[in-house]
């Protein structure tokens, strides 16, 4: 009775439930849970391998697919396992330009991942800031921002991206911009929802009554507590951005031919599919599929782990 006995044996008390996670930061707890989840671990391994492959593409790839001097048009559309005149082994064949597909995929992954992550990151920063502002300011600011979000969300993302790319033209920077424009609204909507809930909790009142500046209440108190749903959305959105970029490139309005991404590779092989040269589309498609599935596995597991209603 001399101290506040921690009712450790109680399942009802939140103290008991949290005892297992003692003295670890929420970040490390999440990471730990993620590594224990078998599906998430699979996702992490897939994504890590693909990212590493993309990162070290110049070292791994047998050929630089952008260096026209290294290409031999005579090698075009060789099936997987062929060998070139110069002795280069084409593990998964070549495309219609005589490019080693394996190298092209590695370089294509690079573009896809850069576009996906940077567009998601920029959209996250813009969307999260506007969403936070909207929730904290309330009133007219909130109404105007959220109506813009509504309008934005009522158009299909691909349509907006098509319009912007038609105006802006092609290029990596242009497609990132188009993806940011189509995606920020999701982040804004998500964070506004959780910020509205957090704003009413009494730790925010406590911060206000200590006369902390608004900036610090927003970024040190409210934002960190809104992160869990945001992280989940961001993970899923990276996958979505990569897919959208692939779609746009497939349609021929995303990236220029000089910087082929996975979408462009798929599109290149598309016309040969029916003539039996399946590999030109199939292997880039497989790489894209693995990347998306890997990211989604992580996202799914994160959603379960970060769900406040999760048991235990």
């Amino acid at each position, binding site marked *: 009775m001399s101290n506040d006995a921690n009712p*450790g044996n109680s399942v009802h008390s939140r103290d008991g439930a949290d005892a297992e996670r003692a003295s670890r930061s929420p970040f490390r707890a999440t990471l730990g849970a993620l590594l224990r989840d078998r599906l998430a671990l699979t996702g992490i391994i897939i994504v890590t391998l693909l990212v590493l492959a993309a990162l070290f593409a110049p070292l791994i790839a047998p050929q630089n697919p952008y260096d026209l001097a290294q290409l031999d048009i005579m090698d075009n559309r060789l099936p997987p396992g062929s060998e070139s005149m110069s002795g280069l082994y084409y593990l998964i064949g070549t495309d219609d330009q005589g490019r080693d597909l394996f190298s092209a995929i590695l370089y294509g992954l690079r573009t896809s991942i850069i576009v996906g992550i940077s567009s998601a990151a920029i959209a996250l920063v813009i969307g999260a800031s506007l969403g936070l502002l909207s929730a904290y300011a309330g009133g007219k600011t909130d109404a105007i921002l959220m109506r813009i979000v509504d309008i934005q969300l009522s158009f299909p993302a691909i349509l907006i991206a098509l319009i912007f790319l038609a105006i802006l033209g092609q290029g990596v920077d242009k497609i990132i911009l188009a993806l940011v424009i189509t995606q920020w609204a999701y982040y804004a909507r998500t964070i506004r929802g959780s910020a509205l809930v957090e704003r009413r909790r009494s730790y925010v009142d406590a911060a206000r009554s200590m006369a902390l500046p608004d900036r610090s209440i927003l970024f040190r108190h409210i934002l960190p507590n809104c992160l869990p749903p945001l992280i989940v959305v961001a993970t899923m959105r990276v996958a979505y951005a990569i897919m959208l970029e692939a779609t746009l490139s497939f349609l021929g309005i995303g990236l220029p031919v000089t910087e082929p991404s996975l979408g462009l590779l798929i599109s290149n092989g598309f016309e040969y599919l029916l003539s039996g040269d399946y590999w030109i589309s199939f292997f880039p498609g497989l790489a894209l599929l693995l990347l998306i599935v890997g990211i989604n596995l992580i996202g799914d597991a994160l959603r379960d782990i970060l769900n406040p209603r999760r048991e235990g």
Partner: protein
Amino acid sequence: MTSPVLSVSNLNTSFLVDGKWMDVVRDVSFDIGAKETVAVVGESGSGKSVTALSIMRLLSENNARLKGEINFGGQNLLDISQQDMQKVRGNRIGMIFQEPMTSLNPVLKIGKQITEVLVRHRGMTQATARAEAIRLLDKVRIPAARSRLDEYPLSFSGGMRQRVVIAIALACSPQLLIADEPTTALDVTIQAQILELIKVLQEEEGMSVLFITHDMGVVAEISDRTVVMYRGEAVETGTTQEIFQHAKHPYTRALLSAVPKLGSMAGTVQPKRFPIVDMKTGEAASVADTADTVEHDKTPILEVKNLVTRFDIKSGFFGRVSGRVHAVENVSFDLREGETLSLVGESGCGKSTTGRSIMRLTEAKSGSITVGGKDVRHAGKSSLLDIRKHMQMIFQDPFESLNPRMRVGEAIAEPIVTHGLAARGEVRKRVADLLTRVGLSPSMADRFPHEFSGGQRQRVCIARALALEPRFIVADESVSALDVSVKAQVINLMLDLQERFKLAYLFISHDMAVVERISHRVAVMYLGEIVEIGSRASVFENPQHPYTKKLMEAVPVPDPARRQIRRISNDEIRSPVRAPDFVAPVRKYDEVSAGHFVQVQ
């Protein structure tokens, strides 16, 4: 005593937590005789609710394991199948839960929810079930039962909903009623009604009652025999009289000594600390009297004059004002250095809004608030900052009032750093100092809030409030969510701090017994107005306003010898929502004795 209705012997319940079986209830045995009320009392985590759920077999079989014997009507409830158990539940054992707001289905009419049980369990036709439902609602004293059958739960208040839940529990005339904290979520006057109702119904129906509660006052009020639980074990069992007068187990004694008794402060002037009982020996250590801290001669540090706070209720697309919550109406008081003024009242009386208006967490509509000679209501950003250093607030829920993602050291350091109250290098020392001051160890600064118990978190909140060296603290229900023993310690801490730093408290609470213990002066609020204000002695020993009297009568007294017979009233707490054109009446106050004002009706 004839053979018991329910006999629990050597009940063991364990839960699967992260792959390990943890004992939550250990070796608990007790009997409930015919027409007897047995209370199981304990603090959070003592296993009292789990005991009730075990008896009802309502725990998931995947992660809960039950051992022992629960004899009810000649069979061991732990042996029979879930199908057979289904027949026992609801039919022969009724159950009432804590939260009346969620234990009724919001989209089904009240009548439907009662007749459903009657049709299914008692095989009645719709027509007879309806007639029986009316009889049941009459029985739980719901006025105009017939007309209320077709209403939805949302048009019932918390107390009325709890009556409906009781009516459903009674539908099959159970032999045993299990009530799990049925009055905890209710206001004190409503709690008194429900307790009285359960007592009367028990007489009328001749049933036995198992009453789970944390409140010793409620135990004294209702039960014949009492089982005291502590950390999963039944540490003491006996008649309620025995337990209250000759408790043997040290824990029971500690628990009882921490329970504030309304009326026990008669004849004293100063607030009083709670005695601390040694958990091993059960001996109470004597506590020092509190010194007189009130500065009567200086000007008050807080002056509130004619404070009015209203909220518009807007409806429709254009936000037309369709009603107004008169949360605070014409409230005036002052607070001196070293003084504790309590605002008491039931939910919706405006006590919290008053506190929030003073802190400017809510904007008042009119009136003046002066802190240390400075106007709070019209203060600009920079001067408000200055004023806020003088006043701090501690909130009700210690689980909510600390940012879960910030180490407590950071949380305490934040106001110090932001307002430049200490040099960079000194901050850690200041934090350590504050933690020691509230009875925590400085090494705890690196922990996250979830690693603390409720009482410890409240201490952290106090430490953080003290960081700015305020002159007064608004404590909004700050001890209400805590267990009795922890509550007593936090109150002792607050009194210590008051003595050391001449802190003043605006203590907002619904708990009359705690208020009596801690305050110098008391203001009773009802529907946004102060109906009575005066020194603690004058308000508690000579209450004048009928509402004050009613409030005091309703408080359950933790002394079975002083159990009182009440009549069951149906008075509800009125709502402070009014039409937009409502004009608040001008109130006059009578001065009954020096400084004791009562609203003239």
